C-alpha cells in the first residue's frame, strides 16, 4: 500500500474528500452569512439555527408528511427563507436604525429560542435520515471509493455558490444590492425599495442555510444542536475570508474544510482547532482577512445612561446598602444560590467594563472564566496550593490569556471583534476538552477548598460565604473606582469618539488592550472563586453558551451601568434556579427575555431607571434656571 509521511494514501484521500464535503457546507453557510453581513452589517448568530431548521425540517417532512428528499431540497429553503423574511420584517428591522450590535444580539436571542423549541419538539438525540435512493451507492475511482451522494453534495454546493456569486456580482439586481450597501439612501432615491431588498437578502441567506441543512441531513448527525456547533466554525471561516467578501467566504469555506480533513489524517487531535488556528494566523498577517477590505465604522448611537447629578454620598450609600443586603441575605435565601449569583455578578461586571465602557462586546468571555477555573482547580488539587494562591494563579492565567486574546481582538472592532473573540473562545474550549490535565468531559472534580492563608478554613459555610462576599465587593469597588479614574475617563472618551481621543494624544489601542486585560483578569477572579465554591471546574464554564449568558445578564440589567450587571446576574441565576424544572424551555425563556429586552428596554433595567430619573432631574433643572435668582445647577462630581 502506498503511504505518504507514514499515512496510507487511501486514508488521506478519504479524509481529503471528507474535508471537501465539510468545506462545501462551510462555503454555503458562510456565503449566506457574508451576504447578510454585507447588506445589514450584522453577524447573523441565528445562521446555525436556520441551518438546523433545514436539516430537521427535511426529517420532519419525510417522517410526518411523507415528503421525500428532492421536494424537501426545494421546500425547506423556501419555508425557512420565508421564516427569515418574517424575522427580518418584524424583529430585526426594529433595530436596524441603531448600532448593528443590537441586531446581532437579537439574532443571538433568536438562536436560543429556535434551538430550545426544536429541542423540546425533537429531543436531542440524532434523527436518522436516509440517502435518497437515486444517489445510493458509489463509484470506485481506482484510488478510492466515491459515494454518489457525497459527490452530489460537492456539486450542488459549488453550483449554489456559483449562482449566488453570479447573481450578486454580475446581475443588475446584484448591482443594486452592492450599491445599497454603500449608500442605501441614494439607492432609495433611485426608486428602489431598499427595505424590501434587505428583507429578501435576509430571506435569501436563511434559504441558503436551510439548503445546506437539507444537503447535510443524510450524512451528518441531524439534531437540534447541530447548528450551534457549526456556527462558530462558520464565523471563523468568514473572518478568514474577509467579512462581507462573497468570494472570500466561498474560498475560505473550502480551504477550512480541506485543512480540517488533512489535519484529521495527520494529527487527528488538532482537527477541531485547526480552523481557529488558521483564523488567528490569517488575522495576524492580514487583519481584514484574505479578501476583506471593509473596515468597520464605529458608530455609537446609544450613549451610556448617566445621572445628571449624583453625589459621593449617594454612591457610598448605594454600595453600603448592597453590601449590607448581601451580608444578611443568607438568613433568608439559600447561600449556595447567593454565592453562585455573586460570582456571576463579578463576571458580568468585568464583562461590562469592556462592553459598556469600552464598547467592545466580546462573545467569548467564557474563555477567561473557564481557563481561570481550570488553573485554580488544577493548582489546588494537583499542586496542593492554598486557595488564595490557587485563585491568584487562575486570575493571572486569565490575565495572560487576556493579553494574547486582546492583542488579536483589539486590532479590530465591531462585528470582527465579536466574531474573533467567539472563535478564540472556541479554541480554548477544544483545548479544555482535549488536554489531559483538564479531565475532558468530566472536568476536574472535588477540588479542595483548603484554608485561606493557611488558617481561615473555607469548608465552613459561613466563612466561605463571607469570603465570596469580600471577593465580589472588592472586585465591584475596584471597577467602580476604575471607571471614575483618569483611565476610565479616557476609556469613555474613546468610546465616544476614538479619532478625537487619538488626536488628543492617547494611544487608543493600548487603552483597549489594558481594558481587555483587566476585564479578563477580573473574569478570571470570578471563575477561580466559583471553582473554590462549587469544587468543580467543567466544560460548561468555557462553553460559548456561558459567554452568551454573561451578555444576557449584562444587557438585561443595563450595559454601561454599575449596578446593572449585578442585578442582571441575580435575575438570570434566579431564573435558572427556579425554572430548572422546565428543562429545554429555560433556553427558550432566556432567549425570549433577551429578545424582549433588546426590543423594548435596551438600556436594561437599571439603565432605563437611570434614564428616567435623570430626565426628571434635568426637567427640574430647567425649571430651576427659569426662576430668577438663587437656583443654580448642582455640581455633579
Amino acid at each position: 500500500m502506498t503511504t505518504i509521511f507514514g499515512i496510507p494514501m487511501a486514508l488521506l484521500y478519504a479524509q481529503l474528500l471528507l474535508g471537501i464535503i465539510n468545506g462545501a457546507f462551510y462555503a454555503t453557510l458562510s456565503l449566506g452569512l457574508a451576504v447578510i453581513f454585507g447588506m445589514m452589517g450584522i453577524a447573523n448568530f441565528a445562521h446555525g439555527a436556520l441551518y438546523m431548521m433545514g436539516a430537521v425540517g427535511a426529517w420532519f417532512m419525510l417522517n410526518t408528511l411523507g415528503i421525500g428528499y428532492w421536494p424537501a431540497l426545494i421546500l425547506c429553503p423556501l419555508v425557512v427563507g420565508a421564516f427569515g423574511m418574517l424575522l427580518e420584517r418584524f424583529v430585526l428591522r426594529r433595530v436596524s436604525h441603531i448600532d448593528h450590535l443590537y441586531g446581532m444580539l437579537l439574532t443571538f436571542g433568536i438562536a436560543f429560542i429556535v434551538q430550545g423549541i426544536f429541542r423540546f419538539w425533537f429531543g436531542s438525540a440524532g434523527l436518522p435520515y436516509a440517502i435518497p435512493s437515486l444517489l445510493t451507492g458509489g463509484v470506485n475511482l481506482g484510488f478510492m471509493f466515491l459515494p454518489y451522494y457525497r459527490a452530489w453534495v460537492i456539486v450542488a454546493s459549488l453550483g449554489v455558490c456559483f449562482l449566488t456569486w453570479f447573481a450578486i456580482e454580475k446581475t443588475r439586481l446584484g448591482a443594486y444590492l452592492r450599491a445599497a450597501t454603500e449608500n442605501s439612501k441614494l439607492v432609495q432615491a433611485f426608486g428602489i425599495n431598499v427595505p424590501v431588498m434587505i428583507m429578501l437578502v435576509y430571506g435569501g441567506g436563511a434559504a441558503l442555510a436551510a439548503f445546506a441543512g437539507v444537503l447535510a441531513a443524510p450524512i451528518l448527525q441531524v439534531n437540534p444542536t447541530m447548528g450551534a456547533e457549526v456556527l462558530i466554525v462558520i464565523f471563523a471561516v468568514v473572518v478568514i475570508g474577509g467579512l462581507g467578501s462573497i468570494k472570500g467566504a466561498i474560498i475560505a469555506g473550502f480551504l477550512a474544510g480541506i485543512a480540517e480533513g488533512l489535519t484529521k489524517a495527520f494529527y487527528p487531535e488538532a482537527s477541531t482547532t485547526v480552523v481557529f488556528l488558521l483564523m488567528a494566523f490569517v488575522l495576524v498577517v492580514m487583519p481584514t482577512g484574505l479578501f476583506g477590505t471593509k473596515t468597520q465604522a464605529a458608530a455609537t448611537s446609544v450613549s451610556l445612561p448617566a445621572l445628571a447629578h449624583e453625589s459621593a454620598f449617594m454612591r457610598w450609600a448605594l454600595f453600603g446598602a448592597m453590601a449590607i443586603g448581601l451580608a444578611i441575605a443568607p438568613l433568608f435565601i439559600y447561600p449556595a444560590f447567593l454565592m453562585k449569583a455573586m460570582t456571576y455578578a463579578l463576571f458580568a461586571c468585568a464583562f461590562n467594563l469592556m462592553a459598556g465602557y469600552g464598547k467592545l462586546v466580546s462573545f467569548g468571555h467564557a474563555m477567561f472564566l473557564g481557563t481561570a477555573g481550570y488553573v485554580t482547580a488544577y493548582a489546588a488539587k494537583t499542586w496542593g496550593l492554598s486557595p488564595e494562591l490557587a485563585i491568584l494563579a487562575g486570575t493571572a492565567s486569565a490575565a495572560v490569556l487576556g493579553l494574547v486574546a486582546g492583542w488579536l481582538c483589539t486590532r479590530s472592532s465591531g462585528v470582527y471583534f465579536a466574531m474573533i473573540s467567539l472563535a478564540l473562545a472556541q479554541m480554548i474550549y477544544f483545548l479544555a476538552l482535549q488536554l489531559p490535565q483538564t479531565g475532558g468531559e468530566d472536568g476536574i472534580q472535588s477540588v479542595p477548598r483548603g484554608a485561606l492563608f493557611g488558617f481561615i478554613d473555607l469548608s465552613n459555610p459561613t466563612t466561605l460565604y463571607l469570603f465570596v462576599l469580600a471577593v465580589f465587593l472588592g472586585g465591584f469597588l475596584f471597577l467602580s473606582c476604575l471607571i471614575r479614574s483618569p483611565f476610565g475617563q479616557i476609556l469613555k472618551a474613546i468610546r465616544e469618539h476614538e479619532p478625537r481621543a487619538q488626536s488628543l494624544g492617547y494611544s487608543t489601542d493600548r487603552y483597549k488592550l489594558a481594558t481587555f486585560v483587566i476585564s479578563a483578569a477580573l473574569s478570571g477572579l470570578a471563575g477561580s472563586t466559583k471553582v473554590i465554591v462549587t469544587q468543580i471546574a467543567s466544560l460548561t464554564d468555557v462553553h460559548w453558551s456561558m459567554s452568551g449568558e454573561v451578555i444576557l445578564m449584562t444587557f438585561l440589567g443595563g450595559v454601561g451601568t454599575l449596578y446593572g450587571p449585578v442585578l442582571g446576574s441575580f435575575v438570570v441565576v434566579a431564573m435558572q434556579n427556579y425554572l430548572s424544572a422546565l428543562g429545554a424551555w429555560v433556553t427558550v425563556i432566556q432567549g425570549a427575555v433577551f429578545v424582549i429586552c433588546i426590543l423594548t428596554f435596551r438600556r436594561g433595567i437599571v439603565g432605563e431607571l437611570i434614564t428616567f430619573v435623570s430626565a426628571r432631574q434635568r426637567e427640574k433643572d430647567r425649571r430651576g434656571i427659569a426662576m430668577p435668582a438663587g437656583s443654580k445647577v448642582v455640581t455633579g462630581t
Partner: protein
Amino acid sequence: MSIAFNGFYAVKNVDFTLHEGALHAVIGPNGAGKTTLFNLLTKFLQPTEGQIFHRGVEVTALKPAAIARQGVVRSFQISAVFQALTIRENIELALLRRSGLQWRLLGNARRDKALVERTEQVLEQFGFTREADIAAAELSYGRKRVLELATTVATDPSVLLLDEPMAGLGREDIDRVAELIQTTAKGRTILLVEHNMQVVSRLAERITVMARGQILAEGPYSEVSSRPDVIAAYTGGTH
C-alpha cells in the same frame, strides 16, 4: 506625498511646507483634498507615496496619537467633542496627558490641584464657566465647535490644524472664534482650512490653494487671491 483610494488620487504629489510660527490657510473647492491632507499630516491616513517631516525628523511611520504627543494636534471638520461627557470633563481629558495622569487606574483627576486650576482657566478663557457641568451634547452646534477648539488649545500644541472651524457657525460666533484663533496663534503654528474668505483674509498670512488633490498656488493672500486661475478653480469647482 500622494494618497490613492482604489486608484483615485485624493492628494497627488503635494509638496507642502508649514513654517514655524506661521498662520497658514489652505483653501480650495469641495473635494479638493484639504481634509485628506490634514489626515495625512496627522497620520489618520497613511500616504501611498511620500514622506512627512516634523522639525527635520521623519514621522511618516508614526500613529495619530504619537503625532499628537509631538504637539501636532488637529480638530475635525465634523465637530468632535465627547458628547456624553460634561464640558468640564471634555477639557480635563485634554489636560490629563500633560499632567501625567493618563495611566492612573484609581483615584480621581479632581484631586490634582494643578489640573483643576488649569481646567478652570480654560473654562473661563472660552466662556464655559457657567455651563461647565452640562453634557457637551446639550450645547448648540456653534458652542460645540468652540469647545472643540478649547480642548485642542488646552493640550498646548505647538502646531494646530483646524479643519473648517467656522463651518456652521453664526455671524457672532465667527467673530469670536476668529478672535480666539488669533490669540492662540501667538507662539504657535496654525494650519487652517476654511471656506469663509473673509476669515481667511483676516487671519492668514499665507495661503495654499488646492484643487483636485494638487497645489494650484501658494503665497501671500493678496497675491494669490487675485490670480485668475485660482478664481477659475474656485468658481468652476464649486458650481
